[in-house]
Every structure is written in C-alpha cells, then in structure tokens.
C-alpha cells in the first residue's frame, strides 16, 4: 500500500521527519519497506509567472516566454501549446536536474541557443519533473502559489510504501494509517466532513436490494446519483491515484478508487440504467453461470461464488470484478453506487479460483468491518456530486442482515504482566487502547475494552495485549532467560544417529550433498536396466511447478548419480558423495513413510593424485569398507549376503543384514544404469536405512577387560575351491576357543594354485583370559581348525 505523506497530512498533523515516522510505523507492525521522495531532486526549480509570450523570430512552433521569478525575469524558448500570460509555472534554472522528455533519462539543464535565441532555463512539463508521462503540456500551478518559492513545496511529496499484514485490512487505507499515527504520536485526527444535498426522490422508490445469501453478504449499502457527466477526474485526484499506483480512468471510477484508498472500503459503480428490473439481488451463482467481466472475458462461476444480480442475471462478481453489461461508460448518466461487505473466505476463494486478484478483493478477503460501508459510501457520493455533477436520491439503501456488534473484552494488568513479563499500569494500558479508538470502561484493576468499528482483528485479551505492547514499543519489554526447570532429556534419537553418520562419512573423505526431494519419473526410470512400471508408484505432486519436480523421490540414488555426472564435467580423480535424507514411500490413506536414508557413491581414483603415486581405482570393497567402518563406529554387528537389486551389477552386490533384516545394500552400479546417467566409469554405491537401523544402535556397550596375558599369532594359508567364501572359512576359524581375532591378509588364485582353486591366508590371534598360552596349546587348536577346514571344504595347507 502506497501512502502519499501529503494526503496523510490532510487527516493528521505530523511533526516527525518522514524517516522517523517510517521507523515508528515499522516498529509498531506496519512495515515501511520503501520511501520515495518526490521533489527531493528539484533544486533550482521554482514557481514562476508568465508575464509575456512573444513569437520566436526564427520558428513558427516555438515561442518566447518571459517569466517573473520574483527577484528577476527570464526569457526562455518554449514549444508548449497551453501557455497563457498570467499562468504560474514550474521554472527550471540552468543546472536543475530534469527528466528528458524523449529518452526518460535524467539530465542537468544547460544554457542553450535554440534557433538563434539563447534560453537560460525552461518551463517544465510533468514528465520533466518525473511526476507523470505527460510531456505535451507544461504544468500550470494553482493561482495561490507564491512566485519564487521552491516547486517542491507545492508538487513534492514523500510516498511511503507500506507492507500491510493480512490481519490489518483497516490499514489498507490512508485514514487507517492516520489512526495508527494518532496512537503512535498523540496527534489529533481530523477526518473529512461529509454532507451533501439529497435532492431527488427516495432511493427505495428507484431500486430494491435483496440479500439472498446473508452468510456471504452481511451488509449491502448503495446510493443513487442521477444526471452525472462522465469526464476525466480532476488533476489532484489523478495525481494521488498515480502516486498510489492506480491508473486514472474516469471521474466516477476514479472516485470509487480514491475513496477505497481513503477509507479501505471497496466501492462499485453501476450504470443504473443497465440494472434490469431496478432490483439488486445478492445471491450465490448457479453452477456454470457465466458473466462477461469488465475486462471483456467470459467467466464461468460456481455455487461457492457470490454475484450481484438484477432481475435477469449477474451484473457483477461480488467484491471481485464488475460485469461488462453494467459498466459505467461515457454515456452513463445515473450511478448506482455500491458499498457492501462480503464474506472474506468466499471472496478469497473466488479471487483465487478465477485468478482475479484486485485491490478490492484484497481488502474483502482480509475481513473489513461492515460498519465501514456507510462513511465511505457517503464520501464517495459527495465527491461524485462535487466532481461529476448530478443529484443524489434521498436516503441510502442499507440491508444489514449480518449485523455483528463489537463486544467488550476484559483485560487486567496481571494478564498483561503474565504474558509480557513487564508490569504496565492500568492508566498506561487504557491510554494506549483509547488512542487506538477503543472504548474503555475501567473497573478497579481491569478494563472492558470495546474495539473501534474499523478493527476486525481484535477478539480476545491477547489481541489487546499486543496492541499495548506494540504501541508502547517492544523495546520496552525486558530480555530475560527461561527460568523454568529443564524438560526431560531426550533419549538416543535419530538426530544423533544422523550426526554420527554424517561425521563418519566426512571423515572418510565423502562430500555431503543435499538434493531436491522432488524428481521426475524419467530420472527414476534411469535406475532400471530393463524398463518396467515403477512399483509402487511414487507420490505425485498435484500441482508440480516443473516436470522435473513432479514426484517425491523413493530413493536417493537418482539424484546422487546425476550429481556425479554433473561434477564429472569439471572433476578428475575420485568423487565420493553422500546424501543423508528422507525418501517417501506411499501408504494407503495415510501420510507416506519417510525413512532417513544414507546413500553414498564412489567413483574414480582411490587416492588423490599425488607425487608419491597411488593410482588404484575405487571398487566394491571400498564401498563395503566404508559401510563396515561406519557400522563399527555405531557399534552394530552386521553381515552381508548376496544382493538382488536390479539397479546394481548382478554379481557385484551384497545386502547388508543386521539382526536378520536387510537394511541396506552395497554394490557396483549396473553398467546399463551408469550408461543411462551418462557415467562412463565404474560407480559403487551403498545405502543404509538409518531409521530401521536406529533401534539396533541403541543399547549399552559393555567394557571388555584388556587381556592380561600375551597373545600368540599364527599365519594359516589354505587352498580351497574358488566357490568357498571367505565368510564361510572365517566363521569356522572364529568358532574355535582361544581364537580372538581372524584377519584375512591374502587372497590368491593363479599359477601357484591348481585351476578352480584359490588360496586364502589368515592371521589368527590366539589368547587366553586365564593364562599365558604355550605353543603346544596353540598348535593343538590350529590343528583342529585345519582338520575342520579339510573335512568341510577339502582345504589343504598351501605349501
């Protein structure tokens, strides 16, 4: 909402500087997000009076104007067509800063020779001063202005650009802001006196108003003015509308807009002669009912929308836009002026559904008070008579089925103190509320405060407390720390698990990324080596902004692979990325499941390129190593079994099994999937469902005493069939007493072992908690292990 300061000053004296005023308003809840100083750059532009006009000796279309500037006279060359001797004009001396009439750019006025005549200065148009686009005519000032005075005193202004919060529709008006300023500064308010002559037969003989949907229209008022003449509105009104960001149209329309800006009450003018049957019916639209609106577009309505209708059909969409059929035009002579109150939710729905946001709509949907209708209607009627001529019918139409009185609210000083943490006296409280227009009845330490008729946002005591706090100032409220006892501490939570996990991965050299939760089917389908429909279908957004953000991701892989591909364009070497975030798994008639997933991908060089060499590539076993390291840190016992995910390489993947549940996967990406993501290298990936893992990470760790007796280490190299897995062998070795650690340190298949066989070499640590082991004890166990391996897997000692 834009408020010209001069307009505001019509209602209230302001002694603060514009900057101070802006600050006070901002602190109290009406944010001034900008200030435009019109005339701030008008140094060297003064009021002059034309004393003579003579033809230019060398040009027919130019003339020489002599201008009295009070202390001196100047003769300048001008091409303006509307000059008369005696006119008071805006005269710019050389060096004044002006807007170029053609290019629109700022320039500094210089002395110039025009067709042989030197011109030291210039008479200005509105465009040259930056007020409007009018460049044809020069500005003619009212006769009352003083010759020689600065032009900024007359045409300058400061426009405040306000951000009005949705709860304060009353502040979407100059008078509403004036009332705020009254409360903030204590300056008295001086509202316009409204009176006009009602000279023709009573309105109820000329129009009838019926409200058929009182739930959507609490009040409908109207006046009738006949014999008006449609023309341009006066300059001062046009200028104010422009300053507020509205386009002048005609005197009648401009008056309705002007009064809306003044009071905050939208008005609508109908061409009275177009109202068929001389009846106004406020009713719900019928489903499918159509109306051509002012903008010439036919709109289809629904029963949730409200229309203003005459005997034959809708003439306007209530509160949103008028109909083309009843529009005020050049031929209009009689005006039916509507000032009504509509249900905010209904207007919001209609404006939103029809995509017709408007100044009127914005005020109705925020819930203005029905009491506002009459003062606005009366002032607008008065202005129409003054400006467009005509005569008003006696009386006003006023249907008010939704009358809702403002109720008094009880407030005590202790309530204020309890909420704000500071004591204010009843006097302070009452004085704030009174300054805001509340009617206050004091009873001991309490006050019954009735909100003023224009406030629709005050319903209970806390609302009054906010009024007190914001007018006195939030900076008067002390700052204290919470002093209540601390809530119970939180148990082991997913929050901590996530933090541990993130820190571990960063320690392993992974870079964390965060990607959008929304993705596309096309992206998800790239994860399928053979195309098939996704099962289950991921959740879809009903109103996607773009096609690539239509579905909620059911995994983190697709985005990570896309990130890898994008980074490959500028990154050599190893790339290790992880994301820890939610995936969204649909459930029947319920919110989706949102497990926290960890997904990491690795690709390229294992080590950073270095002068000390190292050019191994990252493999499946790096991915698995990261998983094992992480699980170790989390204190989780896990095993791996053959995996079966379609997106991964059929032979190079393993499922992570914890306490019998598959909670994750590690593997090399399926070559076709890599190809689909345009990745031309081996990519390994791991995934863990942290939400499922959480319950398994909780549990106390139990201290194991540090061994008192020395250990004995033995190496054991065996040759087994290639199909025998390390895990099978290890499980057997680990099963023996005294064995405390088994480490695989070599795997070999090749010339040195028979075809179809491989060699596995283990370092086994033997230790007893009760005594120092002897070689004989260890030899015995080692022999037992070997026999068992021989009987189970036909293992032989590697010679």
């Amino acid at each position, binding site marked *: 909402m834009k408020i010209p300061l001069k307009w505001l000053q019509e209602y209230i004296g302001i002694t603060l500087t514009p900057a101070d005023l802006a600050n006070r308003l901002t*602190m*109290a809840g009406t944010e001034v*997000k*900008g200030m435009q100083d019109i005339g701030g750059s008008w140094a060297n532009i003064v009021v002059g009076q034309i004393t003579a006009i003579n033809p230019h000796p060398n040009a027919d279309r130019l003339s020489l104007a002599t201008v009295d500037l009070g202390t001196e006279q100047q003769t300048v060359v001008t091409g303006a067509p509307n000059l008369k001797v005696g006119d008071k004009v805006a005269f710019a001396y050389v060096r004044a800063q002006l807007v170029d009439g053609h290019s629109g750019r700022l320039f500094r006025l210089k002395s110039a020779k025009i067709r042989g005549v030197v011109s030291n200065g210039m008479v200005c148009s509105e465009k040259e001063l930056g007020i409007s686009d009018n460049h044809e005519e020069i500005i003619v000032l009212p006769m009352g202005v003083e010759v020689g005075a600065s032009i900024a005193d007359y045409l300058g202004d400061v426009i405040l650009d306000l951000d009005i*919060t*949705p709860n*304060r529709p009353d502040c979407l008006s100059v008078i509403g802001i004036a009332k705020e300023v009254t409360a903030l500064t204590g300056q008295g308010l001086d509202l316009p006196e409204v009176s006009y002559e009602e000279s023709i037969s009573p309105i109820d003989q000329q129009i009838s108003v019926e409200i058929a949907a009182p739930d959507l229209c609490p009040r409908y008022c109207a006046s009738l003015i006949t014999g008006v003449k449609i023309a341009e509105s006066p300059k001062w009104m046009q200028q104010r509308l422009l300053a507020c960001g509205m386009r002048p149209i005609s005197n009648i329309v401009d008056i309705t807009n002007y009064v809306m800006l003044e009071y905050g009450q939208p008005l609508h003018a109908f061409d009275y002669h177009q109202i068929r049957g001389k009846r106004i019916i406020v009713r719900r639209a019928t489903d499918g009912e159509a109306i051509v609106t002012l903008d010439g577009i036919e709109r289809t309505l629904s029963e949730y929308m409200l229309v203003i209708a005459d005997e034959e059909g809708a003439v306007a969409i209530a509160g949103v836009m008028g109909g083309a059929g009843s529009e005020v035009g050049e031929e209009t002579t009689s005006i039916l002026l509507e000032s009504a109150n509509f249900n*905010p*939710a209904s207007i*919001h729905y209609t404006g939103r559904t029809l995509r017709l946001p408007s100044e009127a709509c914005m005020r109705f949907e925020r819930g203005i008070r029905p009491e506002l209708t009459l003062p606005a209607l009366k002032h607008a009627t008065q202005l129409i008579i003054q400006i467009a001529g005509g005569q008003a019918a006696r009386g006003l139409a006023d249907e008010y089925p939704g009358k809702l009185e403002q109720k008094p609210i009880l407030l005590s000083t202790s309530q204020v103190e*309890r*909420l*704000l*943490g*500071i004591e204010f006296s009843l006097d302070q409280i009452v004085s704030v509320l009174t300054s805001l227009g509340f009617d206050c009845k004091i009873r001991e330490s309490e006050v019954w405060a009735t909100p003023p008729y224009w406030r629709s946002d005050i319903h209970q005591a*806390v609302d009054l*407390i*906010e009024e007190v706090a914001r007018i006195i100032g939030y*900076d008067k*409220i002390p*700052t*204290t*720390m*919470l*002093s*209540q*006892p*601390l*809530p119970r501490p*939180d148990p082991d939570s*997913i*929050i901590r698990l996530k933090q541990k996990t*993130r820190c571990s*991965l*960063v*320690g*392993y*050299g992974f*870079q*964390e990324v*965060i990607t*959008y*939760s*929304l993705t596309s089917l096309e992206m998800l389908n790239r994860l399928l080596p053979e195309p098939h429909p996704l099962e289950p279908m991921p*959740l879809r*957004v009903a*109103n*996607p*902004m*773009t096609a690539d953000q239509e579905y909620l991701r059911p995994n983190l892989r697709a985005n990570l692979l896309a990130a890898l591909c*994008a980074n490959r364009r*500028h990154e050599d070497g190893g790339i*290790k990325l992880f994301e820890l*975030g939610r995936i*969204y798994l649909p459930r029947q008639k319920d*919110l989706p499941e*949102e497990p926290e997933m960890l997904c990491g991908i690795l690709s390229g060089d294992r*080590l*950073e390129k270095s002068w*000390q060499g190292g050019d191994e590539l990252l493999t499946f076993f790096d991915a698995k190593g990261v998983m094992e390291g992480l699980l170790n840190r989390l204190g989780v016992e896990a095993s791996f079994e053959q995996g079966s995910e379609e997106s991964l390489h059929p032979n190079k993947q393993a499922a992570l099994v914890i306490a019998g549940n598959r909670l994750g996967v590690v593997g090399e990406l399926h070559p076709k999937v890599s190809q689909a993501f345009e990745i031309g290298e081996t990519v390994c990936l791991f995934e863990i469902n942290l939400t499922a893992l959480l319950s398994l990470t909780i549990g106390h760790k139990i201290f194991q005493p540090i061994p008192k007796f020395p250990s004995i280490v033995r190496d054991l190299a065996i040759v087994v069939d290639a199909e025998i897995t390390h895990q099978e062998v290890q499980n057997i070795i680990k099963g023996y007493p005294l064995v405390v650690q088994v480490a695989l340190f070599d795997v070999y298949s090749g010339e040195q072992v028979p075809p179809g066989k491989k060699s596995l070499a283990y370092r086994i640590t033997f230790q007893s908690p009760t005594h120092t082991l002897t070689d004989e004890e260890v030899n015995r166990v080692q022999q037992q292990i070997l026999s068992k391996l021989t009987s189970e897997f036909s293992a032989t000692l590697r010679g």
Partner: protein
Amino acid sequence: MSARKNLQSSLGTRFIVPSFEFALTPLLLIAYNFKTPMIKQLEEIESSALQELGSIDNIKQLESWQVRYLGKKSQLTKILRSLATLSLDKRKTVGAYANEVKGNLENRLEQKRQVLREVELAASARREDIDITLPGRPFPVGHLHPITQTLYEICDIFVSMGFQVVEGPEVEWDYYNFEALNIPKEHPARDTMSTSWIDSGTEGGERPMLLRTHTTSVSARIIETMHPPIRVVEPGKVYRYEASDATHTPMFYQIDGLAVDKGITMADLKGTLYEFSRRFFGEDRKVRFRCDYFPFVEPGIEMAIECLVCNGKGCRLCGNSGWIEILGAGMTHPQVLQCGGIDPEVYQSFAFGIGIERLPMLRYGIDDIRLFYGSDLRFLRQF
C-alpha cells in the same frame, strides 16, 4: 660446535703444560724418577694413542683405535695383565700409572665419540634434507554441507539453552500445516505460503495432504503429543510452490522453536532470541524486535539484525533499511494451544521460526540460493 671447542681446550691443557700437571701429581713424580722400561712403554703408548686419536674423523676409525689401544689384545691390556708377575713395588707404581693411562684414554675416547656423533648427525641431516614445500600426502577430506553445518550450529545453541531437537513429517496433513495453526481454509495467510499439494487420488480431498510449507507444523504436532514443560527446536526441509531464482528454491530449510510451560513470557522469548543472535552473529551485532503478524502467535515479533554489509547505514542488501530480517516469533496463540489440548489459561508458550539459507548466504556472501542444492563440488568444498 661448542663440544668440539671444549675438547680442543681440554686437549690443549694436557699437552701444552704437562710439567704443571705432573708437578701436582706426586705419584707421577715418583714414576719420573724411576723410569722403568714399562713406564716408558706406557708413556709411548699414551702419546701415540693420543696423537692418533687427534687425526681420527669417523666412528669406524675410532672403533679400530679402541681395539688397538684398549682392546683385549692391546699393549695396555697386556701390561695390565702382566702386573701380577711384577714385584709389589713395581706393581704399585706401574699399575697405578697403567690405570691412569687407561682411564685417560677411555675418557678421551668418549669425548671423541661424542664429537664424531655430532659431526655424523650434522652430516646425515645434510644428506636427508627434504623439500618441505612438496605437498603432503593427501588424506581424504570431506565437508558437511553448509546447510547442515548451519543447522548443527543453531541446534547446538538452542540445545545449550535446554531445547531438544525433534523432527516431523515433510509430507503433512493440511490440518497440522494450517488448520491447527489458526490458518483456516481461505485464510489470506495461506497466500503467502504457496503450497504444493499431494495427489492423494481421493476425490474432493477430504483430508488434504501437502508438502509442509513451514516447520511450524511440527510444533502443532508437539503441542498435541508432548506434555509441558516443552522446549524443542524443529529443523527440517520445507516446500513452496515457487519457481527457482537467485533468492527462491521450491525446497529450503527452516528451524522452528517452541517452549511451553507455566510462567513463560515475551521477555523470555526476547531473551532467548537475543542469546541466539549473540552467539550466532556475535556480541556486537545490534538486534531489533518489531511487531509483526503470524496467525499462530499473538503478540507477533519479527527479529532483525543490523545489516552485516553496511552496519546499519543502509545498502542494497538490506533495502536501505539498515536491518536484515532474521526470524519471526511470538507468544503462541491461545487458539493453537487449545487446539492441541494445552490449556492456555494455565500454560504460556512462545514460538519462533528461522529461515536457514539466508544465514550462510549472509555469512559467506553467497548470492544465489540455488547453489546449495546444485551439488557442485566447486561450491560445496568451500565450506
């Protein structure tokens, strides 16, 4: 160097003024007087040993010197062994003299060894000189995402003030995102939070599902499920139906906070937020609390800090106001408490909500919010 100097001076003493030293040793005077062949031999051994020692310049030579003069087969050892065959008198004088020589040689050997070690060390240090400007062997370094870092930093601040970190669903019922927060259908506040709705497949959507537009939805759930005293912060992703540009992304992060207990006041809210600002933005950063409107609080607050670029003078970043809006807050609306089953007559509550992206953008001067979610390593590695 200083060790060598010491040695030189001690050698000098011995050779340059022998008479002075001998004069003080009655035992040696006797030896002089009765210069037996053995004493003479010992004198020769000592003088040749010392002479040789002076020209030795490495440990190897020193070791062979040791073998030659002090070893089992050395002349000195032989003399010492033969003492037993001498007469008591002779044994005394020769024995004393031989031990004197042996002791002296051993001392000098140790001194020389020390010197040679120093020299050796200096030489080896010269040999093993490295180019310390060569890069270190790389250890892999990962970085937490700047948003994660910011969230952790904020959570830490509030945890230290007794708040717990909690989370809630991102796909949410209309009820918790709006209705329970005093934002009924067709409320104009909904317009400021353009919503992405979930296609739930059900006709009319009698229970509409959406992507939460703020983390305040978690507060609505906490009020419903937890019992006071409550102090929580609720970090997480939120979504808006908005096109991307340098200052907007359809997904971003917020952290909401909620405290419910008896006797909580707006002064406590100001204190808590002031403390947050002090720790996050620094002690000297000015803070401003002004009235603002959010449907779920009353009174409502906006907290701004003095602009980080212009320090309050006014610049492009702060829209010439000198202030940068950081968060919205207020005393939880009684309606919201009531809706969740907490009696507003008994309990008071405050709430606040902070947008996250803005903070690292201000701190690091990042000018495009989309960089956070673009996964570009050249960006992410900077933090």
